[in-house]
């Protein structure tokens, strides 16, 4: 038993990926001002995760972590239903990131959106 444990432990540690590979990005330029038409959305790269920037009908910008809280699929903006939609299991979120319907158990993580010059900057609340 001890022999098995002494052989198994290094193997278990070996297959555990080293920590610190995740990007520590806290803000990113998600788009240029005017790039996004009203009632549309855009997926952008936030570190190693996808984020979603939405320009709603009234021209208000909002951004969220685009990883669905159900099973990790990447959500998209549905311009017909005017909500955020996940194609995997039909989960729907409103434009505040709250769950409207479907299986997602939690709201989407909301990001801050600021305009700096020509850039739309999205940042995480620290």
């Amino acid at each position, binding site marked *: 038993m001890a022999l098995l444990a002494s052989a198994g432990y290094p193997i278990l540690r070996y297959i555990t*990926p080293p920590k610190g*590979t995740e990007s520590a990005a806290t803000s990113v330029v998600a788009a240029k001002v005017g790039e996004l038409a009203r009632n549309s959305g855009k997926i952008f*790269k936030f570190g190693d995760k996808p984020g979603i920037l939405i320009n709603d009908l009234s021209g208000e910008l909002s951004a969220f972590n685009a990883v669905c809280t159900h*099973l990790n699929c990447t*959500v998209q903006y549905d311009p017909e239903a005017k909500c955020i939609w996940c194609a*995997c299991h*039909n989960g729907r979120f409103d434009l505040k990131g709250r769950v409207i319907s479907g299986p997602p158990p939690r709201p989407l993580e909301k990001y801050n959106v600021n305009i700096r010059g020509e850039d739309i900057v999205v940042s995480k609340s620290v």
Partner: protein
Amino acid sequence: MFQKAYNWFDERYGISDFKDTFAKKTVPIHKHFIWYYFGGITLFLLFVQIATGILLLFYYKPTAAEAYESVKFITTKVEFGWLIRSVHSWSANLMALSAFTHLFSAFFLKSYRPPRELTWVTGVGLIGIVMGLGFTGYLLPWNELSFFATKVGTQIAGSVPVVGSYLRTILRGGEEISDATITRFFALHVMVLPICTAALLGLHLVMVQLQGMSEPISVADNPDKKTMKFFPNFFLRDLVVWLLVLGGLLMLSVMFPWELGRKADPFMPTPLGIKPEWYFLWMFQTLKYLPAKILLFDGEVVGILGFGAAGIALVIVPFLDIWSRKGKRNPLLSIAGILAILYILLMTYLAYFGPQK
């Protein structure tokens, strides 16, 4: 010449003993006889998988940057590359179908009853490995469909209570599906799982050889039962069935070459119609219908625990079925099996043809 070679080996290794064992082996003849072919068909398709898999290794490159391009190269530039890949993909699916048919036929014929409990347990283990091979192989072309299906699949593993998060990290090689994931899946697909298959399949086949073929309860009690010699009678029939399967496999591979799809882009929204391999679909669809919360727990956690419980129940079927242990028939487990199959078929149908949005 052949006799000389035979004698040479027999003097050294006593191969006559093996021959005698084969010569004594018989196969019961009864109205459910046809189901005996499915174990052999699964084995044959496994050989096809190994052969075509080795050929694919000559060109395949297991990195996120090159995997898709290398499969594209195989299918568009390498002579008969499209055929080798198509045969590999089709035979993988047919092998899963044949393995499930073999499992369900053994279930309904109650072949798991004593003394064959461990033959059943190793068989269920092999089904698990077949599913693992399908899951890991699905990602290797690094296309859109497989990328997101793997994302969902590994997240499902991540929902397992207590160890889920660690399990997901180990499977993905990090937090996200990335280069590290494809390397790991490749290692699992071409080394770890095939070695496990060889070990478990070896045990399974040795048990079948030692204990012989199982007979249904109705046949076991019949004093006038008929049998057929395994070698050469049943073996030759097996070969004919394998030839038919090979014909069907080649026809499917040529008429419906396996599609490559679009290259995965981790920073694109998940497209509509994302699906795992067909034998995972019923679970995928079930998770669609579960509400966000069931009592205090997340819906998917309850679903995953349910799938786990179903898997454990399947493994211990021989020990649950106390009636067949005594050689008695009891329809309860068969009814449960039929209901399970109907549920799987319904969920699979809904995943393909039900409303997508």
